[in-house]
């Protein structure tokens, strides 16, 4: 396990007992271990947690910007948090690094930045399990907060693939069959190695796969590139919400690729 630097260890150790802590990306395992010792209430700020207008963020960020990071900022502006632990290393992105600076200058709470280089593989059983994809993705994002390996569900034979990050709008996942296997950065999340590029590059060429990235994210380049190498693929990006045309593309791609939407 890669260790936090001493300054960050001290900062997280000194957070109030039972404090309300926001996290962004996948901070190092050691950060979660300390947060659990401090009995912190952990809030994943990458997910929409407040019902506020996204346009509020344009005072701080360009309108044409990653919807996940706009969501992080919106949550941070409205939630009563004691601190934010935000990964800004190669397992997240440069945009997060710059947004961390904006948040640090804007918010009145500590914004503790980490660079997660953890390289211990925890495995990816959820990514290969037969669970409705939206629920599976929720379990994957929740799993990063647990410093111990979760009970492994049984894996299933995949009929489709989803490569990419957890989308800003999980309804994008509703059209996939439960037998969809998860690849890309979401797989790195479950493995607790968000900076593992080799794992992120992995896909299954034998199953129809949707390569997804958030619009305006650097990962769109990788998603498009990998989709061009995969024999049965669809490159897809979406911004804040998954509109009708996005849903239709997924449904048409799966249907025309012969994917049964019935669970196995």
């Amino acid at each position, binding site marked *: 396990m890669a260790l936090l630097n001493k300054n960050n260890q001290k900062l997280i150790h000194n957070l109030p007992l039972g404090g309300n802590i926001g996290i962004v990306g996948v901070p190092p395992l050691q950060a979660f271990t300390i947060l659990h010792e401090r009995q912190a209430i952990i809030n994943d700020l990458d997910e929409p947690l407040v019902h506020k207008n996204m346009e509020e963020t344009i005072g701080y960020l360009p309108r044409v910007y990653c919807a996940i990071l706009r969501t992080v900022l919106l949550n941070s502006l409205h939630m009563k948090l004691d601190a934010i632990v935000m990964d800004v290393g190669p397992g997240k992105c440069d945009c997060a690094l710059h947004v961390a600076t904006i948040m640090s200058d804007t918010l009145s709470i500590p914004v503790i930045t980490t660079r997660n280089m953890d390289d211990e593989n925890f495995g990816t059983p959820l990514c290969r399990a037969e669970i409705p994809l939206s629920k599976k993705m929720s379990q994957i994002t929740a799993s990063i907060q647990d410093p111990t390996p979760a009970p492994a569900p049984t894996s299933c034979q995949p009929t489709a693939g989803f490569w990419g990050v957890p989308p800003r709008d999980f309804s994008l996942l509703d059209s996939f069959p439960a037998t969809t296997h998860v690849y890309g950065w979401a797989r790195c999340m479950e493995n607790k190695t968000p900076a593992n590029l080799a794992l992120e590059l992995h896909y299954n060429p034998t199953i129809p796969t949707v390569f997804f990235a958030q619009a305006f994210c650097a990962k769109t380049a990788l998603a498009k590139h990998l989709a061009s190498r995969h024999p*049965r693929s*669809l*490159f897809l990006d979406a911004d804040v919400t998954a*509109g*009708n*045309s996005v849903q*239709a*593309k997924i*449904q*048409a*791609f799966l*249907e*025309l*690729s012969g994917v049964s939407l019935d669970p196995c």
Partner: protein
Amino acid sequence: MSLAETEPRIMASKERPAHQQVDIGTGHNGKRYCHHYVNELTALARGGEALITDKNYVLLDCGSRDIKFVRYENGKIADMGWNAECGASMGFTIELLGHYYDIDYSTLAVPHRTFNVICGVLGMSHIFDAITNGASEAEAVARFVKGIAINAFRFAGSPAKIYLSGGLCANPLFVNSIPAETIPLGRFVLLKGLELYALQQDNQ
């Protein structure tokens, strides 16, 4: 049922009998009026499979309010796209402009110059600017239509040969403005897809 009753025909939305529900439908308002809805991309792809004998092709549908395409390689779907935002209202705007300026598109030659149009609505300001700068109304509208055609062509991946579907197949200025070999299939490609879909359902 007579042949006339099974031939496709166009009916204005306002003439549609109130509360009429059909067995199967597609299109942007389709969900409201049918018992079984088929997504437009699927209908387009199935229609293309029925009408096109090539194994490798691009089929682009240019309708009133969006553009979409499917690309097939070796007889299998390889790529697709649906632009309901930046491609919005292209066909609608072309028709509107034709009425407004009383233009017969079949008489207009493809202009040498074009506008960089990515949206039917936003692109209209180019027309007004060109007219202000001395272009005739017909010339300005023709540049606009060419800009729309080139944008749709690029959206479909700029293939050397392209099959066309949708109402804009009937607009020779639009079809001739696409810088590729074009094969218009008419506006009933999605309907053909629906027909196949319904037959499949019956067989199952």
